[in-house]
Structure formats: C-alpha cells, structure tokens
C-alpha cells in the first residue's frame, strides 16, 4: 500500500499537485515547490524539502477567527481611549439608583481647525432618568472635565492631558437638562429615620459659562457661572410616598416653590497626586465658594463654603496605600432665607458612608472623614478596607467629632494604570449592610 502511494506521489506531475484545499482563495495557491518529484533520500536538506512539498499540498489561508478580528478592530480603533470623535454609544451614570444608562455622545474637537470643541450627549436610564447636555468652546483635549457638580458638591477637577503648545486653560458654554424621577429624601438633619424614606422627581436645567486655568501641574482654578432652574414634583417610585406628601416647606425648604437661580461656583485646586485617577501618593486640596441667588425673591439665597482634602500615603510600598479623605461644607443662608433641600449636601451612598443608602442624611452643614487601606494584589486588582464617619448638622457650633455616623467595609477595584474602572464596595452600618457597584474611585 505504501509503495502504491509513494509511486503515486512520485508520478504525480508537480504542476498539477493540488496547491490548496478546495475553495481557498487563489491568493494562497502554492506554486509547486520542488523542481523535480521528491524521491527517497539520505539528504537532510531533501527531507526538509519533502516536508515543504507535502505542506504545499494542504495550504489554507492564515485567517483570523471572528473573535480575533473583533479584538483587532477594537485595538486599531483605540477603543479604550476616551477621546473618540464623532457619534458613538456611551454608557453613563446618571446618579445613584438610576440604573443602567445607555446613551450616545458626539465629540468634535478642533472645529474646522480652530481651537474650539463641541460635545453633546444624551442618556436615558432603565429607571427613566434622563440627561442631555451640550458644551461648546475650548473644552480641553480629553473632553469636558467633571467640575463643580450641579448639586453644589465640590467636584474634583480631573484635568486630562494639557493641550499642546502649553495651553492650559479652558472656557466653554454648558447647557444641561436632567430629569431624575426617583430621588430619595429622608428628611433633614442627623436624626432622620430610615423608615421616613420618600422620593421626589428632580428636573433641573443649567445654562453656564465654565472657565478654568491650570497654572501648573499643581495649581489650578475654575469658575462656573450661569443659570440654574430646578423643578421638583412627586417621585415615580411607588414603593415610597412622595416627598411632597410627607414633608412641608418647614421640614423641606423649597418643596413648594420652584427654584430659579443665578449660580456662581469658584474653586481652587492644589493637586499633588502622582496619578490623577489612580493615585498612590500625594494628595489634593480644593477650596470652593458658591453663591446661589434666586432670580425672583430671595427666600432660597445662600452661600456655600467647602473644603476637600485627600491624601494618599504609600506604606513602604505603592502596593499598600493609606488613603484619607476629609470633606466639609458649610452653607450660609441669607437672612430670612433657607437652603433648599434639593441643593443640600448629603451623606450616604457609594462615595460617603457606604453602609448607608444614598442621600441618607442631608443638612446645610456636613463633615465627613474616610480612611481606606488599599492594597494591590496586582496593578489591575485592588482590595480595600474602609472606615467612613460623618455627620450632617444645622448649627455650626456642632462642628466637632461627636455624633458621627459610621460605616465600615471591604472593597474590590479593577483598574488600569491610569484609572479605577470598576469598584465594588460592601459597607456595614447600624442600618445594615449595603453593596455598591460603581465606576471610578471612591476618592
């Protein structure tokens, strides 16, 4: 049998030897390799040549699998880069309890070769939360940075790469509309009860001018000035009574009137973190002042002073980091005016007092401290033990460390070298356990 096969192999015209399997594209058709038919040989070179001839009869194109083609496309389009251009789908977070929020974004930097950028996005969550925004101006290269949050909380300026040529400022117009139909409210003050949970719908729209300057890598400042229009109405979560039914203007200022404000936020940052979104050493200080002026009347006029300090201390190695966070905010309402409940600072949730529900405590003044011991099992996998303590209070004389609400817990984070991508924190408090899955760092 072998002899017959061998004879057939020898006698087969080389030029007619099947050059590839049936159906293969002609581009991979293999030319007949040896000049002469292979013969039994005591030459190693010939034996290797024979193996090549044998292979030439069974060639097939080196095609990638569908999975590999998909990954290749993602890599070649820099899928993980933030700085997409044009329209693209985006997953957004529209706030606590909003659920998944798919959306789209349009990002067009350097319009017509100018230094002006344009961005707009829209997102609707599975629980009916909506957000639409539009920015136009010099926004900085990596897209509009989170800045002073609409609620008035101090947001940390997350500067990305500075613009080329040493440009270190941004200025842009910002129009935003949000509809948050299931915001929780438990009452004002440190003694609010979990059983008093209500919900309300918050709709706000803003028209702002935002500007900032990065003096150097450490010092920067920013300002946001514009109009803020807030409407509240009964919430849509049928499990809980509407805030408007359970609370009055006395217990929830602003609940019976719609807010229409001129707003000014200013902030100054001293940033000496080693990495902006995945810090291992250094810290950041921010000081901010905000002014809210009702356009009609003045019953809800107030000033806000806030201070935020975060420090990251490696413990002998960047694998072990002690992260500390201190935040305080003090609101100063004008004479005969109040701070509306929907603009008051809150404690509880995925970033503060993680053993409590989102928005669990709110008042005009807030004091918050948090410590995390973070350790990296790998650069992309971090664990953390945390302890949070904080309180809300109405009288500034209560600015002390008594009466703090506490929570503690354990966290797991997935990171890139640049940023914390996904965070799972499990916290415990006097009100039981809570689990939060979030994007971005805790602080």
């Amino acid at each position, binding site marked *: 049998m*072998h*002899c017959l*096969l061998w004879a057939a*192999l020898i006698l087969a015209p080389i030029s007619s030897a099947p*050059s590839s399997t049936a159906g293969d*594209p002609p*581009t*991979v*058709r*293999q*030319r007949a*390799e040896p000049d002469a038919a292979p013969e*039994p*040989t*005591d*030459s*190693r*070179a010939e*034996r*290797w*040549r*024979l*193996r*090549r*001839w*044998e*292979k*030439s009869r069974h*060639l*097939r*194109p*080196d*095609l*990638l699998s569908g999975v*590999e*083609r998909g*990954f*290749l496309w*993602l*890599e*070649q*389009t*820099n899928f993980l880069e933030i700085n*997409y*251009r044009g329209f693209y789908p985006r997953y957004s977070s529209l706030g606590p309890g909003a659920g998944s929020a798919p959306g789209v974004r349009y990002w067009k930097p*350097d319009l017509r*070769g100018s230094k002006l950028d344009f961005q707009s996005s829209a997102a609707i969550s599975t629980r009916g939360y909506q957000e639409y925004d539009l920015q136009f101006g010099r926004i900085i290269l990596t897209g509009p940075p989170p800045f002073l949050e609409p609620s008035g909380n101090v947001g940390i300026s997350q500067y990305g790469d500075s613009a*080329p040529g040493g440009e270190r400022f941004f200025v842009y117009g910002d129009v935003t509309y949000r509809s948050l139909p299931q915001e929780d409210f438990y009452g004002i003050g440190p003694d609010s009860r979990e059983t008093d949970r209500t919900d309300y719908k918050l709709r706000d729209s803003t028209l702002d001018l935002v500007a900032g300057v990065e003096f150097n890598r450490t010092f920067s400042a920013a300002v946001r000035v514009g109009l803020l229009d807030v409407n509240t109405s009964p919430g849509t979560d049928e499990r809980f009574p509407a805030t408007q039914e359970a609370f009055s203007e006395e217990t929830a200022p602003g609940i019976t009137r719609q807010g229409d404000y001129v707003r000014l936020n200013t902030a100054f940052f001293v940033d000496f973190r080693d990495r902006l979104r995945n810090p291992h050493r250094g810290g950041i200080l921010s000081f901010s002042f905000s002014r809210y002026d009702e356009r009609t009347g003045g019953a809800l006029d107030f000033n806000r002073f806030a201070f935020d300090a975060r420090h990251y201390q490696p413990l*002998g*190695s*960047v*694998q*072990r980091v002690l992260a500390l966070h201190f935040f305080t905010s003090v609101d100063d309402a004008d004479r005969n005016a109040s701070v509306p409940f929907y603009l008051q600072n809150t404690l509880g949730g995925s970033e503060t007092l993680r053993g409590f529900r989102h928005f669990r405590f709110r008042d005009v003044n807030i004091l918050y401290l948090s410590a995390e*011991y973070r*350790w*990296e*099992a*790998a650069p992309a*996998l971090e*664990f953390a033990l945390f302890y949070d303590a904080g309180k809300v209070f109405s009288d500034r004389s209560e600015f002390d460390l008594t009466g703090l609400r506490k929570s503690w817990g354990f966290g797991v984070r997935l990171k890139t070298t640049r940023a914390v991508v996904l965070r799972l924190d499990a916290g415990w408090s006097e009100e039981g356990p809570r689990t939060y899955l979030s994007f971005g760092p805790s602080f």
Partner: protein
Amino acid sequence: MRLSPPVTVVMIALLLAGVPPLPAQRFLRDDPLWTDQDRLPTDLPHVRDLSAVVDFFQSTFVNRPEGEIAPAENVNTLGEVPDSSWFTNRIGRRSMTLDELARGPNQRTGPDASGPWTIVRAKSQGVSPGFTIQDARKDTYFIKFDPREYPQLATSTEVIATKFFYAFGYHVPENFLTLVRPQSLRIGDGAQITDALGKKRRMMAKDLDEILYKVARRPDGQIQAIASLALPGKPLGPFRYHGTRPDDANDIFPHENRRELRGLRVFAAWLNHDDARSINSLDVFLGEEGGAGHVLHHLIDFGSCLGSGSIKPQSRRAGYEYMLEWTPIIRAGSTMGVWDRAWRDIPYPDLPGVGRFEADFFQPREWKPEYPNPAFDRMRPNDAFWAARIVQRFTRPMIEAIVRTGQLSHPSSERYLVKTLLERQRKIVQYYLAQLNPLDQFHLDGSMLRFQNPGLEAGLADSASYEYQWFAFDNRSEVIRPVGSNASSLETTLPIPRSSEEWLMVEIRTRARLAAWAKPVQVFLRNRSGSKVVGIEREE
C-alpha cells in the same frame, strides 16, 4: 534502535503522508546542515495583522506547554541553527569586527538630510507617536521620537538593541539614529494622519505641531529620532510564536520548537526585551509583483529594551513578573499587601537616557517577558546553551562599540550600560553553562579531537579533567561498541583511536566542581572520506 527526535519527526510525518519509511540512519550525507533552504518560491501568503489582546490570552492560557517538552526541531546534528529565513549565523559562528557590530544591519547611511523630508502619513496617538517620511532619495523611513521628559531613552535604546539582535543573527530593520530639524519637515500632498479613533484624515500643520510638542528636543532645537528604513518586500503581518503559517509551505517547524525563538528568551533577558511578542515581529514577502517569492521573518521595535519602556522608563515589573501571574496576586491579595514584590524596591541610578536597567537583582532563569511566550516557555537547557554561547562571544570592546552607537550624551550613562550588560552577560553565561556539560567547538586536528570548555572561560571552575570513552558507532542501527577503554585527560585534546570503523563516537564527562558537567557529551565523527565532526549530543 534509538532515533534522534528530528529524525523521528520526519519519519512520522512521512508515514502519515503515506510515504514509505526511508532507510533509518542517524546521520545523513549532508549533515551537519548549515543552511535550511526555506526560501523556496511560493505565492503571496495572506496578509493579516494580529490582535495583541488575543495573543496575550492565547499565550497566557492556551499555548502553555504541557507534559514533556520536545527538543527543538530546526537544529542541525551539531545542535546549531542553520541559516534560514528566520536566522543567519553571525557572531555565533564567525568573528565580527567592531565596525561590523557598530554598523549592524545598516547598508545605508540613514535618511538623506540634504533635502526636505516629506511626511507621507502619521499617527497622533499610540505608544510612540511618529510619522513616515520620504527623504530626498525617495527612501521611506518610519520616524519615532523620545518622549519629552526622557531624551534619548527610547531612540538610543532602539539603536543599541537593533545592533545586538542583528549580531545574534536575527533579521532586523535598518535603524538609524538621526537628528530632525523641524523646519526640514514638509507635509506631503495627501499625507494622512490616523487619529485617536483610528480614523484617517488629511494631516495639517497643527498635527505636526502636536506631535513635535510631545517629543524631546535638544538645546539647539533639533530632535533626536530613530529612522527605521521600511523593510523591502510586502508586509504580511507579525508571526506567531506558536504553530506555523498555514499558507506558507516553507514554514514547517512549529515556531515554539524553533531553537532561535526559544533561545531568544536568553537574548531578550540579557537586553531586557520584555516586549518580545508577536506584535513586535514582521513577516515580509520578497518576490516579484504577482510572482513567486518567499517569506522573511523579522524582529522589529526594540523601544522596550534595556531601561526603556518606549514612552517612559521600563516599568519596575518589566522582566520580573508577567502582566498576569497568579502566585504573586494570591500572595499579595491574601496577605493584605504585607507580602510585597521584591522588584518594587530595586534601586536604579538616575542617569539620563538609561531608564530602569540593572544587573544586581537580575536572575537569568527568573527573567520574564510581558506575558508568557510559547517559544520561551519551551526553552530547554540545550536551547539556552546555544543562546548563552552566543552571548558569551561578546567581548567588552564589542559591547562598548555597540553601546556607543546609541550616542548617549552623558558618558556616565554609556559606562553604566556597558557595566550592566557585562554583569548580566556574566550571570547568563554562568547560569546556563552550569546546567549541562558545556564542552564545545569540537574539531579534528590530525589524529586529535580538540574542543573547548567555555565553562572555564566563564569562570565557573578553575580546572577540569575529562573522562572519555571511544565507541564504534553503527549509523543505521545506532548500536555502539567500545573501542579501547575509559581514559582521562587534563587537556582539551583527545587522541582519536586508530580504527577502520566508518563512524566513531566519543562520550566525554567533565570532572569539576559542578555536578552537571558530569553529564555526557557525545561527539560523532565520520571517520572516512574526509573525517569530520558530524554530531554532538549533549545530555540535559
């Protein structure tokens, strides 16, 4: 009957192909083979790129070795790698002059600076932004720069590493260190830039400004750059370190079983080339347009070598831990970070253009690339020995000559690189030559068999003696019969017994303080029609 592994593989292949078994014999008439004729004409293979992510997962989880690792397949009977489309013996087989080492693969003098350089395309993002130019001679070069904060780090490193890999024997591009004057750059008509989304659009002056803003400049405004001459031929995409190209008939040895790819681990460890993976390779097709040709396999992109991590100094992890390695993850995770990686505390000198490169903590056996490499994983002691012997061939003046081509501005940086390379070389040679009997360079001198003990040259022992026994060898049955009795010698010269046998074999054990040297080395001689050494078997 005992068959050597390459012979066994051939036999099995032929049997499977329905070919009658050839007459069995250990050594064939053209052994030892010094050229693998793997440039037989073929049609153009499929052009395709590879996914770095898939390569990572396949290399980390799928293509890991299981069971006993087969010996390398593409070696000759002396254990050497024949010249091929993958490898050309250079310093391993012949002496190279200092000029030759410093010139490396370069046949030209670099981009022609007598006229403007026309940018034909660019990329604004990526590991190292750069562009493609045509010089006055219409030669095409890829231009890459140093990051603004780290002058000379990536470009000097790339030039130095290119020279080393060329001397080892690999096919590499012609890489030139050059100075770019921004005013001599001209954006060509129709030049396109690939933006962050991978979209191509027309390149504008501000794109060039953006790229040049990010790169390091000299005080005189010029920019040091690496100019990589486009490889001749049609690019086909990277090669894999596992399997073969199914559309290239010349490619018959699984890449993970190629000695030059297994041994690349030793070279990569010496130069800290942690980025030795598929995407840093390139196959090109050399042939006439639409006609037959062959594939030539290259290593490219040496920006992540020595202390350079291309856009910054090497990460501290580079060379010491895979990107994903379970043991340290579990240790660090379960001990709340108390257990820590030793490499975090390795001190590095603050020298311009050097980055993170050291020799004190370096251990050849422990060195790791970014993620497992299927060929590296399968490196056996004989593969490592082959590579370590090549590493050993570099003398101090040779290393100095190559490092000098990096044109580092600071002499202290240059001195440090040379010192560190010498120390890493010492560690590599001493480690791998201690794993088996290192006798080498066997050759006949009249009635004597002469050889060398590179282990002594490496300082592994002060002295050694050699026990040996001659045998008559039947090349077909592989049966051996003693000729004479056991003998011993203090010299690296053994008398060949008078014998009418066609084949002789001598088994040598080295007696010294290293136990592994007592493993036998078998040297096979063809004793008729022009005697010569035809085979070496080194027990692992």
